[in-house]
């Protein structure tokens, strides 16, 4: 149980700066997921918390103690690595118990604690095996056991599920969640998989290019993305973005070729905007419906429970997700309709959110 305070943390490799001043606060017992594309600095940030990377600037404090100069073993963190990083020459029991052996815990107590951890993770029958003789999921569990046995203040996960197959990933995801509920240790989980991030996180940190784009609950991040990057990165298929200009009676889109009539445009007339609309917020209607945007169907992707319909809007790609049983033929005309409440506006220059309907949208309850 420990809080983590990150203040102005920077990371440089030689002349390249990869993390540009990050400020974050993780509460005690919280499950935080850091989400971002590869190369966004999320793993570097995690490794700085762990003590595996030097901190080039700023401070990281665990439970109020600045840990910048502490060795990993003195920070009270345990880490689960992407490739498990099990010691290949040690048995499962030795792998799990190694940190206790290093710490000089007597062998009787060690055995007892290894047994306890193995029971929790259902590894008891595998304790004598070598990592080579284990499946991916079992290796993953051993790696978690190795982290658990030290009863750390902070759990760090570095994309631990990315080497597993899809089914196992879902299973391990719920196991990690259960484990967290039981141990209640502060956990920081790094991933580039947004489903993993949404399902696991108490709080989500979205990073891009070494900066934090948004911090919030998964629902907040989904419903009120703070920037164009977050809007297109979170949610699948990605949010549709159309460039446009605010007019008196609505929006002119796609260089003026389309017009969207809206009564409540809250931005000054003439403002250039990037309008975002989630595919799942768009309804398909008959092409000649009043107020609908006309488009041509390009491709239909069947998902079983629903389908993604890619349409062409004067050359601009646009996707619609629907669970209705409609199967339009490619090439046929359709109408797109969506309500102003579902629209997001971003500055075309900075990408930051322009809050048009701020007053009318209630803050999501926490």
């Amino acid at each position, binding site marked *: 149980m420990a809080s983590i305070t990150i203040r102005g943390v920077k990371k440089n490799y030689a002349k390249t700066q990869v993390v540009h001043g990050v400020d974050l606060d993780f509460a005690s017992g919280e499950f935080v997921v850091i989400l971002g594309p590869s190369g966004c600095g999320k793993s570097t940030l995690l490794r700085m918390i762990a003590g*595996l990377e030097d901190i080039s600037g700023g401070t990281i404090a665990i439970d109020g103690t600045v840990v910048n100069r502490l060795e*990993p*073993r003195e920070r009270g963190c345990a880490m689960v690595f992407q490739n498990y*990083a099990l010691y290949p020459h040690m048995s499962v029991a030795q792998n799990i118990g190694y940190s206790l052996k290093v710490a000089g815990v007597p062998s009787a107590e060690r055995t007892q604690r290894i047994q306890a951890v193995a029971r929790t993770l259902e590894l008891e029958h595998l304790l004598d095996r070598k990592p080579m003789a284990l499946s991916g999921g079992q290796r993953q569990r051993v790696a978690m056991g190795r982290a658990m046995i030290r009863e750390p203040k902070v759990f760090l996960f570095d994309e631990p599920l990315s080497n597993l197959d899809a089914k196992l990933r879902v299973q391990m995801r719920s196991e990690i969640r259960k484990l967290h509920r039981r141990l209640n240790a502060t956990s920081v989980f790094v991933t580039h998989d947004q489903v993993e991030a949404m399902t696991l996180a108490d709080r989500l940190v979205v990073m891009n290019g070494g900066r934090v784009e948004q911090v919030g609950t998964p629902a907040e991040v989904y419903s009120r993305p703070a920037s164009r990057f977050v809007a297109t990165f979170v949610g699948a298929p990605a949010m549709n973005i159309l460039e446009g200009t605010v007019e008196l009676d609505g929006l002119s889109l796609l260089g003026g070729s389309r017009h969207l009539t809206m009564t409540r445009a809250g931005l000054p007339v003439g403002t250039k905007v990037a309008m975002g609309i989630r595919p799942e917020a768009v309804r398909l209607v008959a092409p000649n419906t009043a107020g609908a945007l006309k488009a041509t169907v390009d491709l239909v992707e069947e998902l079983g429970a629903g389908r993604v319909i890619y349409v062409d809007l004067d050359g601009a790609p646009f996707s619609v997700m629907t669970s209705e049983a409609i199967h339009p033929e490619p090439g046929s005309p359709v109408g797109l309709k969506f309500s102003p409440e579902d629209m997001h506006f971003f500055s075309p220059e900075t990408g930051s959110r322009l809050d048009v309907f701020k007053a009318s949208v209630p803050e999501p309850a926490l």
Partner: protein
Amino acid sequence: MVERTPFLNLFTHLILFVGFVFCVAPFVVVAIAASHNLRDVNDVPMSLLPGSDFWVNIKTAWVTAGLGPKLLNSFIVAGGVAAGKVIISALTAFSIVYFRFPGRMFIFWLIFVTLMLPLEVRIVPTYAVVANVLSPYQAIFDVIGLSWLIEKVSGVQVSLSLGLLNSYPGLILPLVATATGTFLYRQFFLTVPDELTEAARMDGAGPLRFFIDVLLPLSRNNMAALGTIMFLWAWNQYLWPLLITTDQSHAMAVTELKQLIPNVGGTPEWHIAMAGTLIVMLPPLLVVVLMQRWIVRGLIATEK
């Protein structure tokens, strides 16, 4: 490439057989010569059918050259060199691969350059150092005037002396430094995933702990391969033992074989010489047979 045609099979076997004969024929001739008596071995051409005096010749060779203690000496020296090389090269490679200190690469290349300076090239200075290990320090003391100072102050003349001629350390230590071993270990350490190092750090293991608990067990195969090769190399050393052992008590088996080789004008006892050769060849052969599985594993890529 795997081809399966009868002709190619025959052809490859033929090549293999020729190679085999080239390798084995000298040993067969040695063994046959060792089984003849004095008259038969000096027949021209020598009969290639084995004679009947094999065990007699072996015994004569053993007694004449005093091979018992010599073999023991060889074992001690070769074992010492092999162990020393493994330890030194593992530690050196560990410091070069896992620590970032100034001049790291410079030191690595300096070690590498010693490949160009085998013992034979630097044998005179090495002999001088082994004759008195402290002579370089004496020289330094003399140059900086320290010996002069000590003599003036205390009246004692400084004369450092520690000779290693005719001793095991003298035989072993100059052979222990190894660029090849360091390089082999460096390449192995570079293949150990960084995450393993990081996991050990997270588990609280310090560098030495990591070295002993993780790296050494992982490099067992390398150790066996390097140890075996170096054991053979040290066993077959000739010039250095010959140079520094003036006393029979520290002579090695390979150098002592010369006692069995007939002098000009002496009795041409080649059968005894060959028998002795066989005896001296046997221990390295056994080591190779026992260790070959490890050698192959240690020298090819890492196991999965």
